[in-house]
């Protein structure tokens, strides 16, 4: 029976994408906020739309949620066109909007029960309360909750209808570090439940922690897309070796190492290399033989933040010579 497992695998691989976007466009008068965006989100993945404020993230996500109408291109969410506003789509999608109010005079439990009723199938109220860790606030009115608790209530209201796909628009903006960690663990537990998560954020660490794939959006366009550790060739980028040279030594005294570039800024040396192990070994051996103390010695791979800042042009260009942005 060797064919059966193969067929099953094929079947899984052919599952329709949770979200499919082709050349999506949105104009407000003469201003084009979204300029031809294309991507797919696979079922069960955490897809993150990353970008600075005003990049067009919220416009994109609100088109997918059915709150805005697109002016061009195609969009399919769970196989349905979000512009049609079908009820079945709203049954299967959970939405956490930025700053969105609730009926503030109802309690946490009442609100979760109320929003649960709108769905054909829903999760038991107390199970949802436990999942978002609001057990102690169960019978407190929404208007009395703190900002972080309100955000967790938002998540609860998006989850109570057992959605297949959850949109989270900047879910941790305004959180303190502890609350963010807590929110991240809740979001990760959604993936364990098999949900697809569509996340927008402008926090790098959030994307790094949560996303299986990241799309960087800037000025209405997607400028890079990939796994967070591979984004824009991050994994094959040269590593940076940094240290300071004591007085009397210059760049020319260093041994030959495989490197893209080496530079000296005052007494600080920066070596860019695709073979960091070999290069670091040569440099440190050279220093040990001559009993030279190399200060602040470090080897690092570019962080997601470095890549992001470079892609979105938010920082001065680094000394990286090659073109990386797609």
């Amino acid at each position, binding site marked *: 029976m060797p064919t059966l497992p193969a067929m099953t695998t094929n079947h899984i691989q052919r599952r329709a994408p949770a979200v499919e976007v082709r050349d999506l466009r949105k104009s407000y008068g003469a201003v084009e906020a979204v300029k031809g965006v294309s991507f797919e989100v696979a079922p069960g993945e955490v897809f993150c739309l990353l970008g600075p404020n005003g990049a067009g993230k919220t416009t994109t996500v*609100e088109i997918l949620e059915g*709150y805005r109408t697109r002016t061009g291109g195609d969009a399919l969410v769970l196989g349905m066109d979000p512009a049609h506003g079908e009820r079945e789509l709203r049954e299967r999608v959970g939405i956490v*909007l930025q700053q969105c109010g609730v*009926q503030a*005079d109802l309690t946490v439990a009442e609100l979760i029960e109320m929003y649960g009723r709108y769905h054909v199938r829903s999760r038991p109220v107390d199970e949802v309360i436990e999942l978002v860790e609001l057990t102690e606030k169960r019978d407190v009115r929404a208007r009395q909750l703190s900002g972080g608790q309100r955000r967790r209530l938002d998540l609860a209201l998006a989850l109570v209808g057992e959605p297949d796909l959850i949109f989270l628009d900047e879910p941790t903006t305004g959180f303190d570090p502890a609350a963010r960690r807590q929110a991240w663990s809740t979001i990760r537990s959604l993936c364990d439940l098999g949900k697809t998560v569509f996340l927008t954020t402008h926090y790098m660490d959030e994307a790094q922690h949560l996303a299986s794939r990241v799309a960087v959006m800037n000025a209405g366009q997607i400028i890079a897309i990939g796994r967070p550790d591979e984004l824009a060739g991050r994994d094959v980028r040269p590593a940076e070796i940094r240290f300071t040279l004591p007085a009397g030594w210059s760049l020319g005294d260093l041994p030959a190492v495989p490197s893209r570039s080496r530079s000296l800024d005052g007494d600080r040396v920066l070596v860019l290399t695709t073979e960091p192990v070999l290069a670091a070994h040569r440099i440190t051996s050279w220093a040990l033989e001559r009993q030279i103390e190399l200060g602040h010695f470090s080897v690092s791979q570019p962080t997601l933040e470095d890549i992001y800042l470079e892609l979105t042009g938010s920082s001065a260009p680094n000394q990286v010579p090659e073109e990386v942005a797609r």
Partner: protein
Amino acid sequence: MSSVLTASLRRDLGLVAWQIRYEQRSYWRNRGRGVFTFVFPLMFLVIFASIDKGAHISSRGGIPYDDFFVPGILAYAVIATTYVNMAIGTAILRDAGVLKRMQGTPLPRWAYVAARIGSTILIVAAITALTLGLGAVVWGVHVRGSTLPAVILTLALGTAAFTTLGIGITRFISSAESAPVIVNLTVLPLTFISNVWFPATGLPKALTDVANFFPIRPLADALQYAFDPRTTGAGLKGHDLQTLAIWTVVGIVMMVRFLRRPLGEQG
């Protein structure tokens, strides 16, 4: 196919009933909202009654003033509960993002609107019972059996017109902060020429025409006609009811136009 449709419609009507309960719970818990609806009309009732104790209205054949102001203030109470509450409440819900959140749920929009209207009708029933109960016990103003159907029909039409107008006017209210201003500007001046507080006799013709054009005076007049001791028969004032019916149509059109706008595109 039709049985499937019926089942889903039955489920939606069940959802409307549930939503009315949640709207009611929300409403009665919020003390601020009760001021316009309950405190104001009842306060005016007591104030006017104590000012004009035992007075009679010569322009209306000497009927007791009590028989005029109880239905007059009932008209005001209906407007406060429906138009004022609905417009301010909807503007607040819109600004807070509640309408947007509701739009993202499977609850059909019509079901949500129906529940909010249903909840408003319950509040109208409560304030009507309170006003008329007080009127009967304290000032001896009774609803007569013969004109009761007319009172109910007038209240129903008034509620329909002012509720739909209240939702529809939200389109012209830019923010929740400006809502009370716009709402009171469209109501209060008209009440002084509309037989709500006192008989609007001796008004210039232009002002009378204005008052007759808008729905406040027809509502007050129709209610007062049913309470007037001189009225014989069913107490139905056809022309006023017709005006209220026309404003109901206007209200429905305005309401539908407001509800059709995609919320994400607003603001």
